[in-house]
């Protein structure tokens, strides 16, 4: 347990370092939101100066960093210049949409990849394995951008699914059931796109983890004792093969916030991706920063969860 406390502390320190690093980067950056504003002839330079003072942008960066830390503690994550409101309130709604999308995609990907990888490993070298490997290689070679575009094309051509967005414009005040249905229909495309990108990676890991255990000598011994195929699989293979997969699960939980950014932009899903991109173009730096911080916090949390799961599942680790 002490070890675990240290891990948490370590993760927290890394997070602080990340924030310091990104803050420094933003501090030495040439140009900011107000420089772009100054180019606008309709805004007087006096207004710009007052705004700058109001947001504390005239102070040196250590002062700003401390102020920013305060607002993080309050859950505000700084102030967005472009939206004129605390970043936190902007972020939560968007993060919820992103989590919904990425969570479903991750779930789907694992549900497909687990049986697929196990089947490939059990039939290693046979036609099923080869065909599967070929398919994963092909899927792996198609970048996410392209997957998204293909799906959009398919949706546009067939007209069965809406091409992008999260809700239909005319789906205003109808029943909750109709709303849910509308949301579900809009979810299909981005979820499938994300899952297709994730599946080949997962399948490869599942397969290699399984193959490694299946070739171990204690499995052969179990087989020679005449233990049934399924019992070997459930009692002897899975508990060992699950270890690398738990780390992978932690990682895929950690990337929940960041994996779908690109797909969101392509499918115009109102998640963190489009928000960050807009903020980037507007040089609304606190929004970008909050996005980065939130994603890395998730990643670190994912690693911690993986550690905890490993600790729980593997007695060998507990013994250390």
């Amino acid at each position: 347990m002490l070890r675990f406390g240290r891990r948490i502390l370590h993760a927290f320190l890394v997070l602080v370092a990340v924030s310091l690093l990104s803050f420094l980067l933003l501090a030495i950056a040439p140009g900011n939101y107000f420089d772009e504003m100054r180019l606008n002839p309709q805004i007087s330079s006096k207004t710009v100066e007052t705004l700058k003072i109001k947001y504390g942008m005239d102070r040196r960066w250590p002062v700003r960093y401390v102020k920013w830390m305060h607002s993080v503690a309050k859950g505000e994550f700084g102030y967005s210049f472009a939206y004129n409101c605390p970043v936190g309130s902007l972020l939560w709604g968007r993060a919820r949409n992103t989590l919904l999308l990425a969570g479903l995609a991750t779930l789907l990907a694992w549900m497909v990849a687990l049986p697929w990888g196990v089947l490939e490993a059990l039939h290693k070298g046979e036609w099923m394995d080869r065909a599967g490997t070929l398919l994963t290689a092909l899927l792996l070679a198609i970048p996410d951008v392209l997957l998204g575009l293909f799906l959009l094309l398919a949706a546009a051509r067939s007209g069965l699914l809406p091409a992008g967005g999260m809700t239909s414009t005319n789906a205003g005040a109808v029943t909750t059931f109709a709303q849910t249905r509308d949301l579900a229909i809009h979810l299909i495309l981005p979820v499938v796109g994300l899952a297709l990108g994730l599946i080949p990676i997962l399948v490869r890991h599942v397969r290699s983890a399984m193959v490694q255990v299946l070739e171990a000598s204690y499995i052969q011994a179990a087989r020679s004792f005449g233990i049934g195929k399924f019992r070997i699989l459930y009692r002897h293979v899975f508990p060992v093969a699950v270890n690398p997969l738990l780390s992978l699960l932690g990682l895929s939980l950690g990337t929940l916030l960041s994996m779908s950014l690109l797909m969101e932009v392509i499918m115009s899903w109102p998640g963190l991706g489009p928000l960050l991109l807009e903020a980037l173009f507007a040089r609304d730096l606190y929004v970008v920063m909050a996005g980065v911080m939130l994603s890395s916090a998730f990643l670190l949390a994912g690693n911690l969860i993986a550690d905890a799961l490993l600790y729980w599942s593997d007695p060998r680790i507990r013994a250390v």
Partner: protein
Amino acid sequence: MRIKWNAKNRALVFVLLAVHLPVVFPGFFSPNDYATQNRNLPFAPPTKLHLVDEAGHFHFRPFVYELNETGSGERGTTYQESRIARFPVHFFVHSAAEDSSNSGTPRLHFFGVEQPGLVYLMGTDGFGRDVFSRMLFGGRISLAAGVLATCLALSLAIVLGVISGFYGHWVDTIVMRGVDIFLALPWLCLLFAVRAVLPLHIRTTETFLLFVGIIGIVGWARPARLIRGLVLTAKERNFVLASRAFGASDFHILRRHILPQVTGTLLTLAALLIPQFLLAEVTLSFLGLGVGEPLPSLGNLLAELQKYSVLTSYWWMYCPAMALVLLFLAYQWTAKALQDEITEVTW
């Protein structure tokens, strides 16, 4: 590490050459310039190569007809071939060069058609620019970004990984903390953050170099950790210990004993990282943060597909994307071949 010259590896080398040569020498392999616009032919479909002419005569040398606009409707401009004059295809021709790339001097092309004929193997984009040529030139830029960023990331990774693995102690601690920080940042977010720092409107060459810098600096952490691990085991091997006992200097041990043990993994890493970094360039350019017009890159060629009309009506605009997939497959294959080679040597 010695690579066997068997049929499989020969095929691999052939594929790699076939994929890379046209992209590395786009000026030679593309029939047109990448920036020349032909406003009469927006979104023209790929030029058809014929062998049999209107009168039914067979020609050994393929030829093309001139395209004429027949009207523009809802689905864009429609074209028809005017079958009056034939323009045969020739190999190794000199262009009558309004090449923007080399100011007016005629340039040797791998193939082309007789003047004033035009050949667009993959059609044209909205400005009447040759998609095939743009794909090759864009491929060069994207590939260069991938390769240079990989070189940068790997050199950083080698220096830091080897130092941290070889010398250990506090150096190791510092470097590994750095790795932790960089691994805690999702790469797209990090790219966004670093990109946010840079001015939006800068010249294209500067963007390109900045890009390579950003991607390279962001990508050093994972390979560095891998290399450190390898060095840790490598320096405990008996022959390394023996060499140390004979009084070899650190530099000698690193050069003669440690680095050779890492080379195979380095090559595999390179084959894995190049497509990954190439994809980073594609992603940023796709989002409009990278290489800008009129310079093509695989990313901003893909970005045109974001327009609904292009996505649904002009299938030839997908060709650059297919090239990207081919490139990725080639690199995947290379990485796998190298990986097999290493495991055979080590185990």
